[in-house]
């Protein structure tokens, strides 16, 4: 299969022509000539050298696995010459393909190298080209498959009526226990009664980052409120906030807030970027001073 005679290739060629696309035979170009003005438009349809090559092979119904490289190369080079003569800017990819084809062609002309062990078949110089052509063909078919699917904004359109003016937010329920707890927390923090009891607090941001990550190993998410410790006072709030921001920056954790002023949920990042879209902007408050 490695050495195909030229005659044989010629024969396949002629054999193949009548079967292409069911077109009447007389309209098929038996050689490569097509009118120059048609060519310019027509060449624009090619997506590159693989596309052009595939076209040449498919047009003449050649078995891609048995490409008659000599014949295809000649035809390909003739196209390139035509493109040049029409001052169509030749992309480097086309020239690269021409060089590759020429190389394969020359290797095909050489007698197969005598093999030392008979177990392996000689490597067909066309194998890689065939693989790339088949892969490209699969791609074009996959693209056609996509294009055939009914598509939004082409084949169908979303209908919508304007939803009711600003959906009224459901009222926040009164929460006396929460209110009392909040006041207790503020008092315990000491910030309400006393100005500042600045002490060298043994709080480390790194330590707090570790603790947050530990908490998120046990469960996938937790509430921001659970992370803060009222007994640590404002310094604790500051340290925890910096730790969370640092972990967010390194994308070790992420957080979201369902609604303005709603509870903030921290969750661990699972490697996917899926959740990144849910991330909201900054929290609803920033420490002042400290």
């Amino acid at each position, binding site marked *: 299969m490695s050495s195909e005679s030229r005659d044989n290739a010629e024969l396949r060629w002629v054999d193949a022509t009548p079967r292409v696309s069911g077109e009447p035979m007389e309209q098929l170009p038996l050689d490569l000539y097509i009118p120059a003005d048609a060519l310019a438009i027509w060449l624009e349809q090619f997506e590159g050298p693989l596309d052009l090559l595939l076209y040449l092979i498919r047009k003449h119904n050649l078995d891609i696995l048995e490409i008659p490289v000599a014949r295809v190369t000649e035809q390909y080079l003739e196209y390139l010459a035509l493109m040049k003569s029409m001052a169509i800017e030749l992309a480097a990819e086309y020239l690269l393909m021409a060089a590759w084809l020429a190389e394969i062609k020359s290797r095909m002309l050489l007698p197969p190298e005598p093999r030392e062990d008979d177990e392996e078949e000689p490597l067909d110089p066309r194998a890689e080209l065939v693989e790339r052509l088949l892969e490209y063909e699969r791609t074009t078919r996959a693209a056609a498959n996509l294009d055939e699917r009914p598509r939004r904004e082409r084949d169908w*359109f*979303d*209908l*919508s*009526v*304007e*939803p*009711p*003016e600003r*959906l*009224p*937010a*459901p*009222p*926040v*329920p*009164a*929460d*006396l226990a*929460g*209110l*009392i*707890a*909040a*006041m*207790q*927390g*503020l*008092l*315990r*923090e*000491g*910030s*309400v*009664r*006393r100005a500042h*009891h600045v002490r060298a607090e043994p709080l480390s941001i790194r330590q707090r980052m570790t603790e947050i990550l530990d908490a998120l190993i046990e469960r996938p998410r937790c509430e*921001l*409120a659970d992370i*803060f410790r009222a*007994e640590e*006072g*404002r310094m604790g*709030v500051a340290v925890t906030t910096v730790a969370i921001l640092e972990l967010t920056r390194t994308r070790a954790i992420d957080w979201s807030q*369902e*609604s*303005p*002023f*709603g*509870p*903030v949920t921290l969750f661990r990042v699972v490697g996917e970027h899926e959740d990144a879209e849910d991330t909201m902007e900054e929290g*609803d*408050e*920033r*420490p*002042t*001073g*400290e």
Partner: protein
Amino acid sequence: MSDQPASEPPEGLIELVEALLLASDEPLSVETLGVMIGQETSPALIEATLDRIAARWESHRFVELTSRRLDGRPVWQLVAGAAVAPYLKAADPGRAPRLSRAALETLALIAWRQPITRGEIEAARGVAVNPQILKLLTERGWVRSLGVKDSPGRPEMLGTTRQFLSDFGIDSLDELPDFERFAGQDDIDV
């Protein structure tokens, strides 16, 4: 509307304009509809078509054709009535509203320390008061202005409302637990 009586719009035109109104995100003017449909359709005919569409939807309990002015010209849009809102909301999970810690702390300070200024709240909590929180608490009917304080900048003084008392199930502010006596003890532990 035009002076000349417009001819009766054909059913196909009514359905086309209806589909265009539904498929467009923006409200449409007669001019835009004219561009869409083509020049041979007169503005008067388009207006007659809109009238017909309005009439069709008039009996609909939840959707209606509305008109408003945008950049000086009337634009038309099919909108859902407010009655639909609670149904849409029902399928929106995770929205069970809750007061954030920041909102609770702000409200607590207002409740226990009223009259209190914004600056005093900020001093107590150590963070700037987000105006959205005060807006939320005011809109909810729990917080109101008690006038301005006679001090530099004349800051607004805030307090709670009767609605606050009734929503939180207390008869009077005196019923709020008195922490101040215990607060001193807590201090020791800090």
